[in-house]
């Protein structure tokens, strides 16, 4: 089964929100109005809301219509590149973070790959167990990790691409960083594994309750605004 890449260069959200969702189960309020919370979410799952995608010419209108059909209101999985380049540990050139340049050409409608024109950051992750909450990442090209950076690992097989972000980062020197991560590792890593920092991505589905927001409503049959609500998918 081919997973297609969400048309990240055509349907650009003005206000994206990507986060790890781990809802709390709230207990009853106590006498002094505090409320205890517990969670059964086990580290949470990745969610993304791409709001305010402006469709201003025929091409994005077609792409949005095609994808609203392709994703079938949350039945079909796809690979969603996350807009995280601004906070990525980009290498410095001339005292400022490098610019990514033009994205690699590809199919704007149903592509199968996502990458920058030329890879900017190179990193590897060391061996770790399933559901590990921390990861040792070696940056061989890029700047230091500080915490809060999104990255992806391709776990292969049915699990595929999964997105994580760093939490607390410890600098071990020589470009090696021990990073807390959320969500927890979806599959064990058995050897040095490439860490995707250029275009972090995740296998996701539309939120079925909000799938309708991707279907364009066009003013004067020309322009409109759509939104895509994604939830990490676990069809494996």
């Amino acid at each position, binding site marked *: 089964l081919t997973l297609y890449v969400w048309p990240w260069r055509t349907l650009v959200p003005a206000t994206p929100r990507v986060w790890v969702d781990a809802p709390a189960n709230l207990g009853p309020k106590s006498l002094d109005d505090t409320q205890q919370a517990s969670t059964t*979410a*086990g*580290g949470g799952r990745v969610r993304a809301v791409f709001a305010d995608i402006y469709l201003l010419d025929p091409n994005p209108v077609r792409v949005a219509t095609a994808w609203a059909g392709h994703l079938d209101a949350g039945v079909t999985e796809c690979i969603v590149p996350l807009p995280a380049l601004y906070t990525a540990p980009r290498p410095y050139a001339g005292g400022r973070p490098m610019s990514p340049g033009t994205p690699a050409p590809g199919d704007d409608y149903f592509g199968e790959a996502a990458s920058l024109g030329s890879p900017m950051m190179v990193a590897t992750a060391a061996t770790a167990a399933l*559901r590990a909450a921390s990861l040792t990442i070696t940056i061989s090209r890029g700047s230091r990790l500080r915490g809060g950076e999104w990255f992806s690992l391709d776990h292969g097989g049915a699990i595929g691409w999964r997105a994580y972000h760093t939490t607390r980062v410890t600098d071990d020197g020589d470009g090696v960083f021990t990073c807390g991560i959320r969500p*927890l590792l979806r599959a064990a890593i058995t050897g040095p594994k490439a860490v995707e920092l250029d275009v972090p991505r995740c296998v996701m589905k539309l939120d079925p309750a909000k799938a309708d927001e991707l279907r364009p409503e066009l003013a004067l049959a020309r322009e409109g605004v759509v939104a895509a609500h994604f939830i990490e998918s676990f069809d494996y």
Partner: protein
Amino acid sequence: MAAFAGDAAARIASGGCSYGIFVRVAGTPVLRMWSGPGDYLMPADDVEPADALYKANGALGEIPTLKQLINGDADSIKIPLSGLDATIKGLFDSDPEALVFKPSRIGVVIFDGDHQPLSETLWLHAALSDDVYAVGDGDGAQIVLSLATALSGRTRSEQAFYSDAAQQRRSPGDRICERTARYARGITIAWPV
């Protein structure tokens, strides 16, 4: 009932607690689900004979009567499995018999701040899965797994439909319900035909 001890007990006492709920139905194949997302590798214990992978699939709905279960006064509990994920739905649709009247367990694991297990799995409840049925109302479609306690002996009566399709499933080749569809349309049936 075993109790949590040490770090796990301290964690519960602190109030803000992370834990996982695990459901195991010893059907064919064994159905393993847990409350969080992604895979969970359960180490072998007296319930799991070997290390086993628990699946999430976002499938495990609320467990409404866990408190009653702990107190032991519930005869059966119903676990809604939301999401109607393809894997789960396939299991229930293709062969519900494989999951009915099987020993089932509900377990709890207390996690630390990094969601790593602090305790062994505390298997709270032993039951028999006595029914699997679908409840569908638009966007709230669910499959419900009913678990009855082994002690109560009270199991849920099976929903019966006297349609030909249902009868063929119960007893292949039996033609007794062959003409029931015509009753619904108000046709007077001449016997024998």
